[in-house]
C-alpha cells in the first residue's frame, strides 16, 4: 500500500530535486545520487546524528546542520561540499583517528572501512593532533565474533541494530565523554553474554574493523550495512530484495559453528 508522499522542492548544490515531506536532507540527496559522506547514519536504524560528518550548509542558517537529522523544508537551499565543510570534516576525521588506535595496515577491514573511505575522500593525509594511544583490550571471547574497541568510533550502529532490529539489546554505551565505550551486558566478556543471539547484525553494521568474524585476516572483513535496510523493508512492505552484491560470506569461511 504505497502512500502518496507530498513533494517538496529543494536545491542541493545547485541541483533542484523533488524531496518527500518528512524526509531528511541525506535521504533526499541519496535518492538523487548526490553523495553526502556519513558515518553513524545507517538506513533502517533510528537517527543518531552524532558523527557530524554529514554536516551541510543550509541557506539562512549560521551553523552547519547534520544532513541525516535535518528534515527537508520547501525551497531549502543546501550546500554539501563547501571549503568550510570540507575542512570541518577533515578535522573531525583527524579527531577520530587521534582518539582510537586506527592502524589500517594491520586491520581486518583495510579496504572495507567507512572510516578509511571517508578519510581518503576528505583528503585527510595526516593528523595534526596528538594521538591518544588509549589502552583498550580486545574482546575475542565470543565463539563467532571479535570486538576490537581500538577501532571503535562509538557510532552506536551496533547498539541500535541490536536493540531496534534484533531486539536483544546486548550492546550499550557505558561511561561518558572521552571514556564512553561499548559494553555487552554488565561489561563482562562478550562470550559470557547470555542475551546475544549470535545473529551478527552488529558485525554487518559496523563501519570499521571494530566488529568482525573470528579468524578474519587483514583486509578480509566485509561488512554488509545494507542488510539492515533490506530487513526493515522486508518487514514493512513484505518485499524481499536480494543483497546488492553477495560478499564471500564469512559464515561460509568459518562454518556456522553455533
Amino acid at each position, binding site marked *: 500500500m504505497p502512500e502518496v508522499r507530498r513533494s517538496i522542492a529543494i536545491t542541493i548544490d545547485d541541483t533542484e530535486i523533488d524531496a518527500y515531506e518528512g524526509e531528511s536532507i541525506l535521504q533526499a540527496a541519496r535518492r538523487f545520487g548526490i553523495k553526502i559522506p556519513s558515518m553513524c547514519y545507517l538506513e533502517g536504524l533510528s*537517527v*543518531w*546524528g*552524532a*558523527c*557530524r*560528518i554529514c*554536516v551541510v550548509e543550509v541557506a539562512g542558517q549560521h*551553523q*552547519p546542520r*547534520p544532513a541525516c*537529522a535535518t*528534515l527537508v523544508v520547501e525551497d531549502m537551499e543546501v550546500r554539501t561540499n563547501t571549503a568550510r565543510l570540507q*575542512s*570541518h570534516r577533515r*578535522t*573531525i576525521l583527524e*579527531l*577520530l583517528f*587521534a*582518539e582510537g588506535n586506527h592502524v589500517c595496515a594491520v586491520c581486518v577491514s583495510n579496504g572495507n572501512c567507512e572510516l578509511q573511505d571517508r578519510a581518503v575522500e576528505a583528503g585527510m593525509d595526516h593528523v*595534526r*593532533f*596528538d594521538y*591518544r594511544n588509549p589502552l583498550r583490550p580486545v574482546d575475542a571471547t565470543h565463539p563467532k565474533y571479535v570486538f576490537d574497541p581500538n577501532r571503535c*568510533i*562509538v557510532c552506536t550502529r551496533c547498539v541500535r541494530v541490536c536493540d531496534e532490529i534484533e531486539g536483544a539489546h546486548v550492546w550499550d*554505551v557505558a*561511561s*561518558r*565523554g*572521552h*571514556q*564512553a565505550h561499548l559494553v555487552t551486558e554488565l561489561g563482562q566478556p562478550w562470550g559470557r553474554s547470555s542475551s546475544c543471539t549470535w545473529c551478527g547484525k552488529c558485525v554487518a553494521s559496523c563501519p570499521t574493523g571494530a566488529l568482525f568474524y573470528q579468524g578474519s585476516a587483514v583486509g578480509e572483513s566485509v561488512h554488509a550495512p545494507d542488510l539492515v535496510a533490506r530487513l526493515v523493508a522486508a518487514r514493512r512492505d513484505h518485499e524481499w530484495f536480494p543483497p546488492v552484491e553477495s560478499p564471500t560470506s564469512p559464515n561460509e569461511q568459518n562454518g556456522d559453528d553455533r
Partner: protein
Amino acid sequence: MATPIDLHEVAERELEDQARYPWRIKACGSTACQSAGAGASISTLESEVVAVGLSDSVRVMSTGCMGLCSRGPLVRVLRRGGEETMYQSVDRDVAVDIVGAVAGRGEVADANRIDRHIPFFTRQHRVVLANAGIIDPDRLASAVAHGAYSALEKAITTMTPDQVVEAIKASGLRGRGGAGYPVGAKWSLLAGASSDQKYVIANGDEGDPGAYMDRTVMEDDPHRVIEGLAIAAYATGATRGYIYVRAEYPKAVERLDRAIRAARRSRLLGRKVLGSDFDFEVQVRIGAGAFVCGEETALIASIEGRRGNPRLRPPYPTESGLFGMPSMINNVETLANIPAIVSKGANWFSSIGTDRSTGTKVFALAGDLTNTGLIEVPMGISLREIVEDMGGGVPDGKVFKAAQTGGPSGGCIPTQFMDTSVDYESLRELGSIMGSGGLIVMDEDTSMPEVARFFMEFCMDESCGKCVPCRAGTVQLHGLLDRICSGEGRPGDLGLLEELCTVVRETSLCGLGQSAPNPVVSTLHYFRDEYESLLQEAAHA
C-alpha cells in the same frame, strides 16, 4: 478531600502569631552559613533564649540565605516596630552576646555588626529572592504570610490561561538559564500544542561551577518555584510537572519535597487546585551528577531514566518532549519570577531593567572580591557597580583583571569594559553570556590560559560523549591548553587551537559542545599576549 486553604486566613493567623513576639531572631541556615558553623550558633541562640528566660518574647527561626555568604554565619535581630540589626561571623560566643543584648545585658562587639546601608544591600532589588532570608522555608504558613500562592489564586480565579501567557509575554521576561529565550513565546508554543498530556518542568540542574542562585531559591523559598510552575501549567494546559534537581543539592530536594506535600495537603496542588477545575501534580526528580543534563533534551532523557544524551532539535520539546509529549522546560529562577509578574503586573516587571532585558538577575559573586555571596540586581546595572561598589572591589591591594560570567559556556570581561551594562545583548557583544548567574572575579595574579584550561577540563569531563567534535575535540583542546600552560607549547599551537575551537563550536550537537570553546576564544581575544608569552618561553626553553 481536604477543603482548599484560605490563603488570607492563614496569612493573617501567621502574622498575628509572629506579632506575639516582641523580638525575632532570624538565623541563616543555608548551605554556605551551615558550612561556616551556623548549626552550632542556631542551637546556641535557641538554648540561650531559654536560659535567660525569654522564650515568651523572643522567637528564634532558621531562614534562608541573607546574601553576604563570605561573612557567615549571619543573624538578623528584629524588634517589633523597631530597628533591625544584622550580625556576621556569629559563632557560639557571639550568639550568647546577641541574646544577652536582646535581654538588655551587654552588647555585641562592633566587629560582628553589619552595616545594612552598604551598597551590597542597598543596590539590590529583590524579586526572586524577596522572601529568602525572611521566611521559614519549611513552613507553608510562613511563605503564605509573605504572599506565596496569591498569584496562583489570582491567575486561576481571575485570569484565563491566555491572559496569563499574554502577561508573561508583555513582561519581556527571558530565560534565566543562560540563553535568554523569551519566556512568553515558549509558553505560547506549549499552550498551542494539542495533546491530552503536557508537562512543565523546572530545570534545577544548576551546574555552572561558581553558581548557586537556583539552589538558594529552591532551598529558601521552595513554594515560589512550585507556584511559578503551577502558574505555567495553568497557562499552558499542562497537568503534570517535574522539578529536576541536581543530586548535589540534597537540602533543596528535601525542602521541595516537604513543600510539595504541604501544598498538596492544602489543595494548592493535586486535583481541583484551590477548588477550581485545574489539576496539577508535581514530582521532584533527582539528577546524579551530569552537567549536560541542564540541556533541555538531556534533562528529558534523564527524567525518563536514560543516559543524559542530548538529542537533535527539532523537534523541540514543546512538540515532542518528555515521554514523547509536548513539554516545556523553564529554569528555576525564571519560574521564581512568575508569581511576582502575575501579582504586580507585566508593566511593573518591565519597568525594571532595560528595554530588552527586563527584570532582575541573581548573581553569585565569587573569587577575588571583598564581599562574596548572592545578590539580586536590576538588569542594566554596570559591571563596575557590581564589582567595585557591591563586591567591595578586589582585596589585598590587588588589581582587578577580569570578571568571568556564564561559567564554562561564557567568557571573561576585562577591565576596559567595566562600565558595560549587564544585560543579555551587551554581554554577548563582549564574547561572554549572561549565563545562569555565576560571576567570578579574578585579580592580577590569575593566569588566563589557566582559566581557559580549567573550563576546558570541565567541558571535557562533562561531555556526554555522543558527538565526535565535543567528545574528541574537547580532549584535544584541553591537551593543547595543557601543553601551552605547562610551557611545552609548540609553534602553530595557537592557530590549531583557534581552528579547533571553530570546528567544535560549529559542528557540536548541543549547547555544551557549541559553547565549550567560549572561554578559550574569549581569553585569546583579550589576553592573547599571555598565550604568546607562554609560547615564547617554551621556544626559548
